[in-house]
């Protein structure tokens, strides 16, 4: 798959640390010599407190460009990605205008050539204007560089159109990635249906609104024998449906966000609009099911669903706020703090699901640490403690679900495409 970024000089440097590349079976202390962006030497080194991991891949990012450059630009979004240890990200097409034609997509790719700090791919829409009525010109869009197709932000409501989209996606050789939401079940929904929404008087957004659509889309994908990627899963019923489909040889994959892995509906009690996202934070047993599915591989990828929003749009009562939170700059630290340190998830699994896992789903080159290969490395200080604050972001937006939280583990340097794109 074609990713695009600013071209520039390739860097030469050496790194020392515990090289941990689970997908390659590497766990040893090494000195990595990078010459002009390429790994030229791998030599034994003394133990160090730093971990050198294959840099991360985020298959689900909103860069808000074109249309809402006040919230994020290709440059600010990819700088945020760099600060989060990413060497590749995939941007969503629900912009204004929607990425539903080759001309819009080509414009973005051209801008990425001058603005993107980290290699960036773009998904295109399944339907024109994401209106769920007519298919986009998928073959032309694939030719212009579309990584995959999605109407993310909205579901494909019509089962008929979804079936046709699955059939037709074979023409462009790209898969579909779906945002599963049955809109009549989630109507006026602001929080997971359950005790907390009931107590706070928030409109309920039941798990069923997601899982019913997951079941439908998996049935369609199975019937059409086409691959399907399920985005930002939140409910245990969805995970169970995905596992069943996989057992029946449906080529289905799934992703999960750091916020759904680390927080449950309890966080909504604060009525803080930075705890509002779509799908919503769900019950504790849903969260545990997501962690389990990530650990056992049912869910292959961690995706931030980085969704920047202007401060004035989030600084309102919960029900009036838009859905979405940022996540690029905090993903590793949040997951390390909430899942790895308590011993719920191994560091190896976390690193795999943040890098090789998502890369494989979308046919993006897996970031490997190997002799002669391009350097794509995240340097991690697992002991570093830091507090997430509003003024610390590279992103233009600060609608983080972690504001004020102290995290342990930090990305201190990122090498993407052979260049140092971030250093603390």
């Amino acid at each position, binding site marked *: 798959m074609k990713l695009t970024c600013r071209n520039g000089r390739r860097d030469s440097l050496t790194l020392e640390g515990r090289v941990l590349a689970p997908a390659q079976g590497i766990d040893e202390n090494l000195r990595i010599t990078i010459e002009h962006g390429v790994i030229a030497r791998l030599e034994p080194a003394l133990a160090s407190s730093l971990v050198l991991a294959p840099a991360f891949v985020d298959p689900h990012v909103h860069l808000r460009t074109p249309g809402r450059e006040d919230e994020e630009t290709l440059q600010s979004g990819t700088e945020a990605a760099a600060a989060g240890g990413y060497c590749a990200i995939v941007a969503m097409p629900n912009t204004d205008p929607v990425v539903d034609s080759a001309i819009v997509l080509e414009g973005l790719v051209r801008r990425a050539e001058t603005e993107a700090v980290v290699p960036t791919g773009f998904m295109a829409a399944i339907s024109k204007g994401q209106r769920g009525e007519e298919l986009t010109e998928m073959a032309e869009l694939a030719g212009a560089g579309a990584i995959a197709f999605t109407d993310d932000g909205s579901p494909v409501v019509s089962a008929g159109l979804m079936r046709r989209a699955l059939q037709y996606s074979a023409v462009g050789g790209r898969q579909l990635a779906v945002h599963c939401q049955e809109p009549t079940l989630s109507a006026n929904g602001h929080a997971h249906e359950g005790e907390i929404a*009931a107590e*706070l*008087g*928030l409109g309920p957004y039941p798990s069923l609104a997601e899982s019913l659509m997951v079941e439908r889309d998996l049935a369609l994908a199975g019937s059409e024998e086409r691959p399907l990627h399920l985005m930002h899963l939140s409910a245990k019923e969805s995970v169970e449906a995905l596992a069943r489909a996989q057992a029946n040889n449906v080529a289905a994959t799934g992703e999960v966000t750091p916020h759904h892995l680390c927080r449950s509906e309890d966080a909504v009690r604060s009525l803080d609009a930075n705890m509002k996202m779509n799908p919503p934070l769900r019950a504790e047993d849903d969260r545990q099911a997501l962690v389990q599915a990530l650990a056992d591989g049912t869910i292959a990828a961690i995706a931030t669903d980085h969704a920047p929003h202007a401060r004035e749009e989030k600084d309102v009562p*919960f029900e009036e706020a838009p859905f979405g939170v940022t996540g690029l700059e905090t993903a590793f630290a949040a997951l390390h703090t909430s899942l790895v340190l308590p011993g719920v998830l191994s560091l190896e699994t976390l690193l795999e699901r943040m890098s090789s896992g998502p890369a494989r789903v979308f046919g993006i080159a897996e970031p490997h640490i190997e002799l002669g290969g391009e350097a794509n490395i995240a340097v991690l200080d697992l002991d570093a403690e830091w507090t997430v604050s509003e003024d610390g972001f590279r992103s233009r937006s600060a609608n983080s679900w972690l504001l004020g939280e102290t995290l342990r583990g930090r990305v201190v340097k990122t090498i993407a495409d052979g260049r140092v794109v971030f250093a603390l």
Partner: protein
Amino acid sequence: MAEQEARRHLLSIADLTGADVERILGLAGRMAEVAAAGEKLPTLRGRTVVNLFYESSTRTSTSFELAAKRLSADTLTVRASGSSVDKGESLRDTVETLAAYRPDVIVVRHPAAGAPGIVARASAANVVNAGDGKHQHPTQALLDVYTIGETLGRLEGVQVAIVGDVLHSRVARSLVQALRLVGAHSTLVAPPTLLPRGIESLGCEVSTDIAAVAAADVIYVLRMQRERMAAGEAFIPSLGEYTALYGITPERVRPGQLVMHPGPMNRGIEIDPRVADAPYSLVTEQVRSGLAVRMAVLADLAVDLEAIAAEALVELA
């Protein structure tokens, strides 16, 4: 911190303890005597109480205004329509603008849950929630509990059946919590589509059968909001069917039971006019209690304010 927050504001019944409720209700008893005598107290002299209403309201806004006046406060009422709110000003900006008048108390009603918390964070004033979305209406709950206590002479063990549109009701949510704090019990009775999943975690029983009201000492009737019947939003097939199944008619009230309603009533829909006007209806007592309880709430915050100021002086000395 949270404790201090709860003491400075009245945002939710969930922030209160049983002792808080007891204290406020005790104060309300004294305020009721003052109100009955048509007297004024100097408690809030020189203080400013701002009523900030983003939703239409008659009884709550007039009740707060009168309560503040009876406590000698200067009052100011700002309504969303006809103010800069109409011009798109954000809640935070409106509150910061009002801050120029140095309000001591802001009473806020807003269509979204959590808005009073935003006001509390954006201002130095004590904030009283006068209804936020479908979330809380704490002074309504306190005045209802006060009314029940005054009428029955007890609260411990009292059974209250709350009937109607629970889903959209901030009154129901606050009242269940307040009743629980004083040792009373509540049962929510509603059609299944108006009974939110998980609501029993507030600490109440739930039932979809109107027969459940028979065991109650008090039948508390919720307003059926006609706007909930809009196309695509219809939670029940018709108001007629609702009335037939859940309307409180004289036949559904057993001798000795009391009936309450937070108002405004839809006579002939959720409550039969014969019930509304019956001797066992406490509707006018509720309005009267509203004044006393709101005086008590305002005075209670002011007293706390004095106490905090006194503590600060002691620290300075």
